[in-house]
């Protein structure tokens, strides 16, 4: 078998072996199918779920929270990162807050956000944004600080205005690193939304997972996990598309293709 077809065949074979092993284990070993349902039960539960319009409402709620939180985190992170890279005293003044806010386990703030912003979408968006903010912000800060003095000299010689400098030099230089932060952030944004739904609310996939658990509908719970994974995969792939579209010149794009 050629290396090329091996690269296609091996991962598929590995997944099939894993699922078969899982199924075999549940059917033969002492573990109860109630605690760990076999893969085929999860597939059955999933195929029932996807025809329920209520499910798609929950999917939409979680997606809305995740994307809103993510977008807020990106806008805020890029803006503050640029601002602090540009005016170092602002960074020095903000340093204690940055460090403390970075060290707080943001998940622990979730109940507080529910208290402040209620049981609706808003609190989940805030939790999602709080989690997604740091990877974007710290990457943006480093990226905007790393603009080469020689490139700045070119823009000084050409008498570029601040906005021209930002659009033609600073943003394109920073984008590859910011996008790396966004890849991490988008996953964290989803975690934030789900955790918010766990602790307060009556819609979204996180809420659905908790209610399936309370009804001991374990295959359906697994079904929700599969859906969340797919959602994460789609969001991550979208960032990859964004990278190819925004930074086609960069090695992170040319090597990925």
């Amino acid at each position, binding site marked *: 078998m050629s290396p090329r077809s091996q690269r296609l065949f091996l991962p598929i074979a590995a997944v099939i072996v894993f699922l078969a092993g899982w199924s075999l284990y549940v059917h033969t070993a002492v573990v109860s199918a109630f605690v760990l349902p076999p893969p085929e039960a999860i597939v059955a539960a999933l195929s029932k779920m996807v025809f329920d319009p209520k499910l798609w409402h929950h999917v939409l709620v979680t997606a809305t929270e995740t994307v809103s939180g993510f977008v807020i985190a990106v806008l805020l992170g890029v803006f503050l990162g640029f601002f602090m890279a540009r005016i170092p005293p602002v960074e020095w003044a903000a340093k204690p807050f940055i460090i403390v806010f970075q060290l707080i386990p943001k998940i622990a703030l979730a109940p507080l956000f529910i208290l402040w912003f209620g049981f609706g979408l808003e609190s989940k968006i805030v939790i999602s944004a709080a989690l997604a903010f740091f990877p974007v912000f710290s990457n943006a800060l480093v990226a905007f600080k790393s603009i080469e003095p*020689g*490139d700045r*000299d*070119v823009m*000084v*010689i*050409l*008498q*570029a*205005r601040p906005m*021209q400098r930002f659009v*033609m*030099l600073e943003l*394109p230089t920073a984008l590859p690193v910011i996008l790396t932060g966004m890849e991490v952030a988008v996953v964290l944004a989803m975690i934030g939304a789900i955790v918010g739904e766990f602790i307060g609310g009556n819609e979204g996939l996180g809420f659905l997972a908790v209610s399936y658990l309370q009804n001991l509908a374990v295959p359906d719970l697994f079904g929700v996990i599969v859906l969340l994974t797919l959602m994460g995969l789609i969001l991550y792939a979208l960032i990859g598309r964004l990278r190819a579209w925004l*930074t086609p*010149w*960069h090695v992170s794009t040319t090597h990925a293709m």
Partner: protein
Amino acid sequence: MGANSTTPRTDIRISGLSKVFGSGSAAVAAITDANLEIRHGEFVSLLGPSGCGKTTLLRIIAGLEIPTAGSIEVRGKPVWSGTVRSTEATRPVSMMFQEARLFPWFTVAENVALPLRIAGIDRAKRRERAHEICETVGLKGFEDHRPTALSGGMRQRASLARALVTDPEVLLLDEPFGALDAMTRDALNVELMEVCARAKVTTILVTHSITEAAFLSDSVVVLAPRPARITNIVEISFERPRDLDLQRRVEFQDMVGHLRHLLTGAAA
């Protein structure tokens, strides 16, 4: 560089110029009491070993460094008023660096046209001008390539095109071909000389190559380190146009020997 009534106007006038980096006991004099006048259309080299302040001097002329003392005027207008770089004085000044400093997110033509884009020239006009100047510097056919796809020599051609696209009055070159192999470097130097002569641009080249300075220049400014200062200004009067055969002639070798003597004497 004696001035008389028939010489063209003075493009650059440097008087009593000093630059100190740091302060107190850590202070380092990058250039001390430099005086220099450069006439329009002249090709001048700043020649000296590392640490002699030649690059600092060039960066002060460009308005990239602020002088500690003294003044620098481009075509009668001071480059620095207090701590503010004068955009009016530096507008006709263009600069090329040792690294090409092309932006990878732009194509070659877009990089070359960048100065026009910043100046607000419309897209069609700047594209036309970029293609024109690309042809002049031998980049025809590479306009739509990414800079990363070019060789080092071709990148420096693009960088030169970007420096010339606005028809500058003054061209500052900071060891532009220093990182290239000897053959590419020779070829580009010949082309540079031709392009500068045709454009009638006043050119200041920073170099540590004696041969390069003697070959390209109308006059060579010799600098020495510790303390960093100008020690000699040598007129080079070989007829133009010059070609690489000039470098084999006895007069040329004598000039190189003379410059080397000045450099070693200054360093001692």
